[in-house]
């Protein structure tokens, strides 16, 4: 079984994100970029499936700017077998919308015919949480989102999902789309020899035209603003004072 893993190049999770002065978006000048952490978990899961003999090949795919090559090299260094980069933007500030990404991925799926797509539940830049679900709809495949455990059993996948209030286990018919959550696994560090070997693994470059997909945006960003700064709290001297304040000032009890 072939596993397809879409990965996205996003602002590194350690970076303090700053909004551009004109509010048109987020400042990306000289900002460290990395693989979306949820995608890293998806790559790790795919590699583990391969190590267990469940998967035969792991293909990583990224859609974005040319520099997303580095992100794909990271996936290859972790253990993916080959990679596909669909260069869909020249400007690092251009974000390809989930529907366009899902259409491109659907086209890749038709070409590659994987038995499983393992994707991050969302990218930490725009937090859309939509691509996996849209891809499932476009392909007519079953979907299992927010996975914290994945077991492949013949023609179906047993997926434990993190839902409000607990865990839900569902049985999804293969082929399917699984989007992964934080607690599924802890991704490995790519070793130095594997970083060097990754350079020799195949990385195909494509364009949206190759797949006949229109990636022009359907949404326009009206405004980007930083979250309001939190106001300082108050210290209370006693439980009685706390209760009084909750009653009289906050009006919550």
């Amino acid at each position, binding site marked *: 079984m072939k596993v397809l893993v879409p990965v996205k190049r996003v602002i*590194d999770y*350690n*970076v303090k994100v700053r909004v551009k002065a004109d509010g048109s978006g987020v400042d990306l000048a*000289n900002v*460290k970029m*990395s693989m979306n952490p949820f995608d890293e978990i998806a790559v790790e899961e795919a590699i583990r499936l391969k190590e267990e003999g469940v998967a035969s090949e792991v293909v990583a795919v990224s859609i974005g700017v040319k520099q997303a090559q*580095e992100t794909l*090299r*990271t996936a290859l*260094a972790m253990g993916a077998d080959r990679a596909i980069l669909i260069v869909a933007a020249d400007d690092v500030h251009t974000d390809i919308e989930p529907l366009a990404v899902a259409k491109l991925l659907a086209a890749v799926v038709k070409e590659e015919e994987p038995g499983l797509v393992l994707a991050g539940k969302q990218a930490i830049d725009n937090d859309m949480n939509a691509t996996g679900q849209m891809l499932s709809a476009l392909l007519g495949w079953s979907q299992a989102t927010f996975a914290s455990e994945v077991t492949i059993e013949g023609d179906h996948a047993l997926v434990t999902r993190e839902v409000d209030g607990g865990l839900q286990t569902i049985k999804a018919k293969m082929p399917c789309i699984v989007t992964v959550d934080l607690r599924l696994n802890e991704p490995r*560090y*790519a*070793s*130095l*020899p*594997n*970083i*060097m070997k*990754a*350079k020799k693994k195949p990385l195909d470059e494509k364009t949206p035209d190759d797949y006949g997909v229109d990636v022009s945006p359907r949404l326009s960003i009206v405004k980007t603003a930083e979250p309001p700064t939190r106001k300082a709290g108050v210290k209370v001297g006693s439980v009685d004072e706390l209760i009084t304040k909750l009653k009289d000032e906050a009006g919550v009890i």
Partner: protein
Amino acid sequence: MFAATMQFDLGEDVNAMREMVHRWAQDRVRPMAEEIDRKNLFPPELWQEMGELGLLGVTVPEEYGGAGMSYLAHVIAVEEIARASASVSLSYGAHSNLCVNQIKLNGTDEQRAKYLPRLISGEHVGALAMSEAGAGSDVVSMKLRAEKRNDRFILNGTKYWITNGCDADTLVVYAKTDPEAGSKGITAFLIEKEMVGFSTSEHFDKLGMRGSNTAELIFEDVEVPFENILGEEGKGVRVLMSGLDYERVVLAGIGTGIMAACLDEIMPYMVERKQFGQSIGNFQLMQGKIADMYTAMNSARAYVYEVAKACDRGDVTRQDAAACCLYASEQAMVQAHQAVQAMGGAGFLSDSPVARIFRDAKLMEIGAGTSEIRRMLVGREMMGAMR
């Protein structure tokens, strides 16, 4: 963590490597740094982890299990580990450069095949021994005697201040094979821990770099076969001096790593610490301090990285190897001093990270050649060019 810094043009491979080492060191080593310092003990499991990540043979060809990468890459690995714990980085540098790289440079094919794979996997620990209690800066005055007897050498004497000394399985050791011949009477040997008559002291209690285990080596009639000569008999000083140039460059990365660690520690404090109703980082005297620290760090990086690239081209000079190490080491001390100052009373507490970094930084002006010797080398080489 302070990440808003210039990205140097180091190439895709080295960047990918820095990313990996940074993450591993921050996730695994940094949380241990305080305990390593307090207990003065190296966590042995780190050898295996570094081995699995391929960090122990950065500059060694793939056929011996190495990563086949550059000195520049090695500097970056040392720097990122030092950023998490300087003492772990010192032990790492002693193993991966002083021992492993010396065997790579000077070993025969048989010696490389015998020793390198297990050193690179992390199964074995490596060390290098030149200093003695009476021979520090004047290393050629060493007294460890290697007497030829039939088909072997018999070693008698001691070595002092040996990083990883009490943990090492394989040691590169310099000894006098011809005491009358001065610098031409020194030979390098490959010593194995199990050799009869070889022993070590317990590791020393030190001001800083605690947890990087330093010990005395004791040789009592240790029999060493000829095949364990590293390089040629009587040519030990050549092995020693050529290795020292690379050693200085690679260990300079500890200095740049210490400076990065200083900023990692104090920058959040600049925001969180409030005096006179505002973050202390709003005050110009504090901004001046962090600006100076940033400038020193990236100046040192620029020089060290460039000298490392010269090592990779094969045209490094002793002058620059010593000068970049001198600068990075002394700046590490200066900036660690300022980092303690920036945190005031909080920085003066024994368990504060900057107090540890301050104590660790002092070794940079002493170990692997003192600042005085480095200055002497740079000045002498410069005057030599005028003759």
